[in-house]
């Protein structure tokens, strides 16, 4: 009994393929593949549709999602447009992918270390200080002028769990050396930064009136009179 099916080069399948056994595609499949074995898309093979299988190996091109229970292997000639979801995904140098990659264990990245800075080596608190990554980036002189407070501050932050420093937006586009005025001061000692002492009373600027029209031949007085009122235009 042959359990391995093969779509040879030159053959086009339009429609969905599903069932048991392994499948080798060297031709063109326009439609979905759903088998319980191994799917191999050879370098001449092209699949236009989603593939679901136990394991998938791609050396040709696929336009559609790859979903495998076990592994997805992308050979150097692989071209994939679509999401890749499998317990294990590996790609050889040269493989090209556009799409989302999700592997089993990736959720561990969410829960534990990913995005979290561990501090196993005693550097107390420095890492759990409630600063944002972008705030750090905005401090161009940080390395050169480490403020002494930064070293003193850890005890404050020590109660917090050390591994809980999560950066929610590593994606954040990093502004080039942000606001010139604020940046050098604010991030220098963000941990101890007491709330700004007393907000200076905001001075209300006097309402500005347009300058009185000056007409050479008429003059100020006449211009004011024309207005109908005798308020001071000065």
């Amino acid at each position, binding site marked *: 009994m042959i359990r391995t099916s093969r779509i040879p080069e030159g053959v086009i399948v339009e429609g969905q393929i599903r069932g048991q056994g392994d499948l080798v595609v060297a031709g063109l499949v326009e439609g979905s593949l759903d088998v319980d074995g191994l799917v191999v898309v050879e370098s001449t093979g092209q699949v236009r549709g989603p593939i679901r299988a136990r394991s998938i190996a791609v050396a040709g091109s696929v336009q559609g999602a790859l979903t495998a229970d076990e592994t997805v292997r992308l050979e150097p000639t692989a*071209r994939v447009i679509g999401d890749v979801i499998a317990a294990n995904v590996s790609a050889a140098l040269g493989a090209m992918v556009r799409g989302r990659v999700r592997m089993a264990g990736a959720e561990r990245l969410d829960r534990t270390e990913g995005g979290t800075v561990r501090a196993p080596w005693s550097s107390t608190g420095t890492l759990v200080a409630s600063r944002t990554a972008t705030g*750090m980036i905005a401090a161009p002189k940080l390395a050169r002028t480490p403020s002494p407070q930064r070293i003193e501050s850890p005890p404050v932050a020590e109660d917090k769990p050390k591994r809980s420093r999560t950066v929610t937006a590593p994606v954040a586009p990093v502004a080039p050396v942000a606001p010139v005025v604020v940046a050098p001061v604010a991030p220098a000692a963000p941990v101890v930064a007491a709330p700004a002492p007393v907000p200076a009373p905001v001075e209300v600027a006097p309402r500005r009136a347009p300058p009185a029209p000056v007409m050479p031949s008429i003059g100020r007085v006449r211009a004011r009179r024309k207005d109908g009122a005798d308020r001071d235009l000065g």
Partner: protein
Amino acid sequence: MSESRERAGVIGAGLVVMGRLRGEGDMRVEGVLEGEIDLDGDVSLGATSNVVAPVRGRSVEIEGELAGNVIAERELTVRAGGRVRGDVRAARLAIDDGALIDGMLDMAFDLGPGVAR
């Protein structure tokens, strides 16, 4: 790369960098870095590294843990044990067995003419 590696900068295990790493030259990170890496050179994140930063470099190799987007002008290699959470843009890409990636991959290429048909 081998001859340039001797001059490559290193952030050793146990070192913590909060801030931005930029300029020219190769860097290897074994410690913790939070901020940004933007280098005209090869970036290598070692097995003990823990980086929370967007990373841009010529060639980027990841054996440690990275949370952040990656732009590799030449190639990105994620070794076994490497974990990447973030979106990836690279000219070439290699993902070894045992590596973990969670994010979008974006690479510039065309499918063969057959599929486009």
